[in-house]
């Protein structure tokens, strides 16, 4: 752990802006700036994320570190910043980890197969509003990895469950539903994420408020897929 002092912090600054200002000072002093991942700075790209005092994305619920302002801290506070810790997320530098395991889980089955040009009219299949809304709730996952970092087992269940739920709730996702669950869970195991023991830390820190019920859907689809044995 390296200790830095950030002075003249304006309460409207986000945690990343505090780091920006600190980094500017470090560069001018000839020291190495702190490396941290970020891009959109508005809580949607999922690039940013680290532990603040042991909590993924810091103390405010449903908020990423780029959206967390210093209003929620007091003058003189000490903030311990740590990268996401998980075997499946190897450390690259400072607060930056390798989350490509997430991309590989999606590649294994987190999609609907449909070549462009072959789709029917969008209104051909009416989808009940409640279903579309629930799918949207699950689809809101930004792939930041906070769930993995918070979980004592470093499980990727909330992430994987979210995609399985999003696609599995919708009529378009039915043809591949069982295969999807089997393939994605298989990949998640191959990546050395831990298994889910229903602790719930993931839901507590998720900046998009994804619900634990997506894990239940994942388990159900996985089970159904295993039994049917007709899935690929």
């Amino acid at each position, binding site marked *: 752990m390296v200790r830095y002092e950030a002075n003249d912090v*304006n309460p*409207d600054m*986000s945690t990343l*802006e505090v780091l*920006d200002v600190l*980094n*500017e000072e*470090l*560069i*001018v002093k*000839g020291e190495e*700036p702190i490396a941290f*991942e970020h*891009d*959109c*700075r*508005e*809580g*949607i*790209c*999922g*690039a940013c994320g680290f532990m603040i005092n042991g909590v993924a994305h810091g103390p*405010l619920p449903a*908020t990423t570190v780029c*959206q967390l*302002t210093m*209003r929620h801290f007091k003058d003189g506070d000490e903030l311990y910043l740590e990268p996401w810790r998980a075997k499946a997320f190897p450390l*690259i*530098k400072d607060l*930056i980890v390798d*989350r*490509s395991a997430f*991309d590989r889980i*999606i*590649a294994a089955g987190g*999609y*609907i*197969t*449909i070549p*462009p*040009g*072959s*789709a*029917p*009219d*969008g*209104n051909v299949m*009416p989808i*009940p*509003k409640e279903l*579309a*809304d629930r*799918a*949207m709730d699950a*689809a809101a996952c*930004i*792939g930041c990895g906070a769930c993995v970092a918070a979980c004592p087992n470093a499980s990727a269940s909330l992430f994987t469950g979210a995609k399985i739920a*999003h696609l599995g709730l*919708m009529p378009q*996702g039915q043809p591949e539903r069982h295969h999807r669950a089997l393939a994605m869970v298989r990949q998640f195991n191959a990546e050395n994420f831990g298994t889910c023991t229903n602790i719930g830390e993931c839901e507590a820190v998720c900046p998009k408020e994804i619900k634990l019920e997506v894990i239940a859907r994942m388990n159900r689809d996985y089970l159904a897929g295993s039994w049917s044995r007709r899935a690929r």
Partner: protein
Amino acid sequence: MQLDSRTPHGPIEKLWDQARFEMKLVNPANKRKHTIIVVGSGLAGASAASTLGGLGYNVKCFCFQDSPRRAHSIAAQGGINAAKNYHGDGDSVFRLFYDTVKGGDFRSREANVYRLAQISVNIIDQCVAQGVPFAREYGGTLANRSFGGAQVSRTFYARGQTGQQLLLGAYQALEEQVNAGRVQMFPRTEMLDLVVIDGKARGIVTRNLVTGKVESHVAEAVVLGTGGYGNVYYLSTNAKGSNCTAIWRAHKHGAAFGNPCFTQIHPTCIPVSGHYQSKLTLMSESLRNDGRIWVPKKQWDKRPPNQIPENERDYYLERRYPSFGNLVPRDVASRNAKAVCDEGRGVGETGLGVYLDFSDAIQQFGIDVIRERYGNLFEMYQRITDEDPYQVPMRIYPAIHYTMGGLWVDYYLMTTIPGLFAIGEANFSDHGANRLGASALMQGLSDGYFILPYTVGDYIAKHKFEPVDASHAEIARAEAEVAERVQRLLSIKGQHTVDSFHRRLGKIMWDDCGMSRTARGLESAIEQIRELREQYWKDVNVAGSADDLNQSLEKAGRVADFFELAELICIDAMHRNESCGGHFREEYQTPDGEAQRNDEEFSYVAAWEYAGADQPPVLHREPLAFEYVHPSARSYK
């Protein structure tokens, strides 16, 4: 340099079908022998790479972020347009085409825009089929809302996260192709130069952002889907990493740059709160569906908004533009906001803000309906400002958001370099001088799913490609140049950080090449930019080394390119002696302050050719003819 748009001839509604039939095809068995490089994994890049992979080509896709899903398309909030006319309110392909040409202030190519409108309906179908969770009506059909510049409801949306959901659809399709072995994905890899051999684009030089390794990739065609250059203003709604490097390097190799001064300022963004501000947050234009924009009638009125009675409020857009009201296009809304703030009637501590008020909508529809439509946007606003838009009006101010300009492309999305294509925001084409809301998502996917896969195939089928390998002289030269530039930036070790230069560049651009431009201001801007650029190369301090992850170095290269592009933007703005769309020259306005176009002299695309370091760029004009939408004064009154 010859500009030939290669637009087919005939009735506009048949052009694209005709072109598709006339384009040559690559035999299915031969597709895998051809390598295509796609740089950028946003809506345009990911849809292109996944579609090309699905067709059987060997695709290499590159992005500088840690995952293709981080592309800034993800942040688009409001929605995507399509001419479905599900509401029976008068929409049609022709109307969308008409609205887009008019919204672009008659500075785009009719054929391209018509095709965009035509394809828009297919895009919705494709996205629905991919499982994009668009909002639905109670009966289960797709929901719509209205957006600026349109009097029909044609925007499809997924809460306030339409960009994210569309991008995830394309990203998932991309990952499917990666899994199938047809697309090789290179994340954390930045393109730093283009390789041109025998006049054709044959590859790129990249730097691995973790190891620092510089290497080249060879292909038969290169596609740039690298987004817009709004970050030349430092503060914009773009992601921090968004940059112009890929298109700028291509420009220096001979790709003409179209209409660089057509930059879009979005009227509804959260105002700046301090000097450390790192970017500006967009508040979706969809909010203007229900929000009413106003400022106090009196100057310097610092009363809290809820204490200002109705008769002392100026709902200035409703007053000036009765038929479009709060839904006037972005350039009109932005200029009006600036005008009222310049008059001293702006709100908030800095006086640079106007109100976007939902109290009437909440009263009319109930808070639950408003929460459902805009819930996540209201939360985002509250997180950042600590103000509750359900209780007090939102404060908003215009900010740089999108760039209509970009690499010049013909009807086949090819630049002036054979084999180099540009798609999405990276190209100049369909939006003219002003983009309508909800059409960027439409253009990115149209280019990537439904146009490029045909046109790249046509190019490949019509050319023979000499094999090129890593030992080719041009590759060695390009790699050496990239490595040398990296070393040069690191060796300066001056007094000021990259960001401090970037901020200063951004301020010059915002002050003199922003919402409102004058010849004198632009001349001054060009001088200041040149001086600052010289200082940069003598005084910048880039931390760290070349051989590992070095974010300071990444920024340094991008800012160096922004300096050069900034000059071109000002030169373009200075030469275009008219006001149109997002380009407002104070010397050319109507008596009531609206943009005054000069169709006689400026109805063309300004395509600039790079003529060498410190040489003035060369202007080429592509004349624009409007046969279907007759240029008129663009009135939204």
